[in-house]
């Protein structure tokens, strides 16, 4: 039971860490200064959530693990984040910002309903982290929704870009609502979040003059450790210092 719970907490933590790491790649490269600051602030929130979750997982594991060893010393197969968050920021020539925005929106909408749900979890620490984080996630959801509308209902060019991003990313959304074994065992009913999420996405897409794709094959595996090729590169970057200089601090 305890290791099931640890797996679940690591899944939540990995989602937050990997998206935080992805967004942080924008630092110093944002389209304008204010949005550079916005996306990196979102990174900071996500990494903060990841830290709370890793600390709790380390405490439950009680085997000498720390928040740092969980983030820096696990291999790709041990990461349980969903495939959506590891997808690239978007080819700068063809899609660019639109893919980052859409990924954030699809994920924030999911996280918003998930954390709402987890606020009443029987585990007081998980409930507390959810309660704290949902305030931040509300900002992320609002900001990314507005950007989806701005791009989708903007120029022909911006519209085309976000449609391309949608074709790239939609296939990774199915996994969010298919329970992994640890979710099943803990009774975390992710399937129940799907309707709210779908309604939210459809409402924003309507305003953005986009339609929700239908009959798309859904790629799965991330939540149980089978990732797309992108995660290895992210971890190489993220974990380089601890791998090259074990235990280094500054």
């Amino acid at each position, binding site marked *: 039971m305890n290791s099931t719970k640890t797996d679940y907490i690591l899944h939540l933590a990995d989602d937050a860490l990997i998206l935080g790491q992805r967004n942080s790649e924008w630092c110093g490269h944002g389209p304008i200064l204010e949005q550079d600051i*916005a996306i990196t602030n979102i990174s900071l929130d996500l990494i903060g959530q990841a830290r709370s979750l890793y600390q709790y997982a380390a405490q439950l594991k009680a085997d000498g693990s720390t928040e740092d060893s969980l983030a820096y010393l696990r291999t790709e197969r041990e990461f349980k984040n969903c495939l959506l968050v590891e997808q690239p920021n978007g080819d700068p020539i063809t899609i660019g910002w639109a893919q980052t925005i859409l990924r954030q929106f699809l994920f924030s909408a999911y996280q918003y309903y998930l954390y709402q749900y987890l606020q009443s979890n029987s585990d007081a620490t998980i409930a507390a982290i959810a*309660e704290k984080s949902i305030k931040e996630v509300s900002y992320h959801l609002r900001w990314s929704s507005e950007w989806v*509308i701005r791009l989708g209902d903007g120029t022909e060019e911006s519209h085309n870009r976000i449609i391309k991003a949608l074709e790239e990313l939609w296939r990774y959304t199915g996994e969010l609502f298919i329970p992994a074994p640890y979710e099943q065992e803990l009774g975390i009913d992710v399937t129940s979040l799907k309707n709210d999420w779908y309604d939210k996405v459809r409402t924003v897409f309507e305003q953005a003059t986009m339609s929700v794709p239908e009959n798309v094959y859904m790629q799965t595996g991330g939540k149980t450790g089978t990732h797309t090729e992108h995660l290895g590169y992210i971890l190489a970057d993220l974990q380089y210092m601890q791998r090259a200089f074990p235990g280094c601090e500054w």
Partner: protein
Amino acid sequence: MKNEKSLQIDERILWDLLKEVKDPEIPVLSIIDLGIVRDIKMSDDEPEIIITPTYTGCPAMDMIAATIKMEMATLGFKNVKVTHVISPAWTTDWMSEEGKRKLKEYGIAPPNPKQQVCNDKLFAADEAVQCPHCESWHTHCISEFGSTACKALYQCDDCREPFDYFKCH
């Protein structure tokens, strides 16, 4: 063995001492002004200070914890524990009136008393925020995300100065 009365006096001294611990990113505010100190507990004659982060990723928390320990050391406490608690979640309602006044003097607009923007309504009208420099209410939001996680960036339409707004949370 201390009796209950001396314990109370001790605690008051500790609370006063915590006023010396400043937020490293907004050095005019103490952690008492910010409302992030939740409780002080005494066990085995050593204090445990319970604090709560403003935002989960706030990078100032580690430094705040270190400063608390340094201040406590001036009273001879060597094994001070600083515990983080996140529930109930911190809100700007816990910021003291004194803190709000200090923020404004420092050039940062203090949080509005009633939470207005922390919802998921899209393209909501900008929250009315008073310019801390010329006190005009003709201001607009430039970005919801500012120089730190807890602030948004505004500009005054009258004196044209940009300023930080400590957003309600």
